[in-house]
């Protein structure tokens, strides 16, 4: 009975089973406590979902498989600023925007938000700055911090007598020189003509030159620390008294870090004026409610669809339902692996794609019914049903993917939508269609081939 094609189907069948178990493991909760007390049997053990930790050459792969939730579900703040580029020449805009972005990112990092996201998006002729701060509850503080003028300051490092070190605060070690970012004319990254090492040269205005002369006199052979937003950037040692208002910071730079520092220094104040045009704050409780409601609606919908399929197609419907469960597991695993940031519209996209995933099966089963009616045997009808339905499944789903891609806007075209909500919906819809074709056609077909054959031989 073992035809070559049959043994191949068996292999595919077991691959599908294996894949299913893999996805179940990925979707296990992070901790799974098991407590069984039955008679004198006591099992108490907590299973942990294995993380993916391994080294591939020099790359370390570390995956935690946690679902990522968007702002609307996890809670947090989102701010959109309008960037005013009208006062700049066209050729300067790109570099100004770059330093604006790095500047804002630095400020956001100061705020201590994990996974903050700073994005620039181009609208027809102006630019937008989108800042997402997951988990931030005090939006006012965040706005204050982002909108402030960054301060560049030069502070001398003071020697503290040993007997006072115990009580000294950090501030006591630094003494302000009076020199600040407002005195800086420009900072340039360059290669030193003497040492051929990358360095950053600073040029001060007249007042700054005087202040700098005094500072270098006071701290000769000592260190002057350069602060940006109260963060120390570098602390070079003063070699000579400098009178011409020009300074060079050298040290262990590569060209890239020298450039970054120059950008940061130039951008002491934000290089472009920004204006807050939208702020969104979602509390964590509201998000949790949305998740719960979405999951409940999804499960109820799924249950009705499953019953409908069994009621309509019997044994075939049951197989389709198994395919649907595998579909759900694969989709969730991909959300964790890619990872896809789940937003509420994203959950709706998922729920909708479940409905569409069943479509392939309905198309195929209706085809099979037709073929059986024409007098074909069950196995023939099945193979024909899958084969003939494939054309329409392919074309119909391609259309949905085309619209999905226009919604997702992968190339960031400025004339199409770039909002996270719509994109969250599009990505789950596209993934859902792709996986739906895989499980609805490939998985169910092979399940049927094996299970139906086994049934026939029984």
């Amino acid at each position, binding site marked *: 009975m073992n035809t070559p094609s049959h043994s191949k189907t068996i292999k595919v069948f077991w691959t599908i089973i294996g894949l299913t178990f893999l996805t179940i493991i990925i979707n296990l909760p992070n901790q799974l406590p098991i407590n069984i007390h039955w008679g004198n049997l006591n099992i108490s053990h907590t299973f942990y979902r294995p993380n993916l930790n391994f080294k591939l050459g020099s790359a370390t792969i570390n995956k935690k498989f946690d679902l990522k939730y968007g702002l609307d579900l996890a809670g947090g703040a989102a701010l*959109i600023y*309008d960037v005013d580029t009208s006062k700049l020449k066209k050729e300067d805009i790109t570099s100004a925007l770059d330093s604006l972005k790095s500047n804002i990112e630095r400020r956001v990092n100061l705020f201590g938000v994990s996974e903050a996201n700073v994005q620039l998006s181009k*609208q027809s002729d102006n630019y937008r700055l989108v800042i997402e701060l997951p988990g931030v509850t005090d939006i*006012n503080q965040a*706005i204050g911090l982002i909108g402030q003028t960054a301060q560049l300051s030069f502070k001398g490092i003071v020697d503290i007598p040993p007997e006072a070190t115990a009580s000294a605060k950090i501030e006591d070690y630094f003494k302000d020189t009076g020199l600040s970012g407002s005195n800086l004319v420009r900072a340039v990254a360059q290669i030193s003509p003497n040492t051929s090492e990358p360095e950053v040269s600073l040029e001060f205005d007249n007042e700054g030159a005087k202040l700098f002369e005094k500072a270098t006199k006071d701290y000769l052979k000592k260190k002057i620390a350069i602060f940006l937003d109260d963060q120390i950037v570098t602390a070079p040692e003063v070699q000579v008294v400098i009178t011409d208002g020009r300074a060079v910071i050298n040290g262990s730079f590569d060209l890239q870090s020298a450039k970054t520092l120059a950008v940061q220094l130039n951008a002491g104040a934000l290089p472009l004026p920004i204006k*807050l*045009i*939208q*702020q*969104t*704050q*979602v*509390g964590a*409780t*509201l998000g949790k409610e*949305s998740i719960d*409601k*979405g999951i*409940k*609606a*999804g499960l109820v*919908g*799924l249950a*009705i*669809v499953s019953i*409908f*399929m069994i009621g309509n197609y019997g044994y075939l419907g049951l197989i389709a339902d198994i395919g649907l469960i595998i579909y759900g597991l694969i989709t969730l695993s991909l959300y964790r692996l890619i990872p896809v940031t789940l937003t*509420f*519209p994203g959950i*709706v996209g998922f*729920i*909708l794609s*479940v*409905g*569409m995933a*069943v*479509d392939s099966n*309905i*198309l195929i089963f*209706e085809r099979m019914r037709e073929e059986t009616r024409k007098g074909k045997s069950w196995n023939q009808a099945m193979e024909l049903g899958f084969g*003939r339905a494939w*054309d*329409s499944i392919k*074309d*119909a*789903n*391609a*259309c949905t993917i*085309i*619209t*999905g891609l*226009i*919604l997702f806007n992968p190339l960031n075209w400025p*004339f*199409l*939508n770039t*909002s996270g*909500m*719509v994109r969250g*919906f599009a990505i789950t819809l596209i993934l859902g269609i792709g996986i739906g074709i895989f499980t609805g056609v490939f998985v169910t077909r092979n399940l049927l081939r094996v299970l139906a054959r086994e049934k026939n031989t029984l």
Partner: protein
Amino acid sequence: MNIMKFRPLFYIISLTLLSVSIFSIIKWRFVPSIDFAGGTVWEFKAPNLKNVDPINNIFDTQKIQLSSISPEGDGKYLLKFANINQDQKVSLDNSIKTIDKDFQELRFETLGPTLGKELLQKTIFAIILSSLALLLFIGSRFKDLTFGASAVLAMLHDSIILIGAFSLLGHFLGAEVDSLFVTALLTTLSASVHDTVVTFDRIRELKRQNTKIDWVEMANQAVSEVIVRSINNSMTVIFMLLALVVLGGDTTRWFALALLIGVVCGTYSSTAVAIPLVLFWKRNKK
């Protein structure tokens, strides 16, 4: 099954729905959400408040015009008002905290009107781009632009009815048009075409088997072969969406309803609009 003999009826239904939609769109327009019109939505929990008067007082003293305030039960309130700046927000926060120390912010959104205009432009671009892409894709897959054009026209038919439905729902029930609605609209485009393509695929197959067959006869055969599938498939999507309408939160209820209207329309129009349009063109060619 001779479904195509009902073509005049289909025309009447579609034209009626289209004219009601267009009438409502022109007459009543939409209830725009802050996504389109700009403004502020503020949802918070103030469990110790007995009524909304203290909130009204705060807005009076701050000279901010409240456009609506609705208690949602459980100490929750939903407020809508004009776009405000950061200083106004800070002082609102402070005042609210003085009337209820257990004040808890659930959601705060404020945005200017410029974003709405962009959203509208981008939606129109997306529809035009989808229409063109689908026209060309279907045209080339079926080697006949008539099919592409009919599918796209059926799709626009569904979009207009969905937009009209929301104009009516907005006028009578206060349904707002927001960026989620835009998503639903664009999904309707694909769902509509999805069904149409399945039916077209049957015509393509029948034509391959028998080139001499009459167009109307072929359409009838194709439709009666796929109609069970179309209805069954729509049922599954409808089950999922109904679950969302009933069980989902307030924010998504209208969204799910929009998708529901879109899916039902899409199933109807693939049989009742797209196929009759193909027949119309094929007949006029002769």
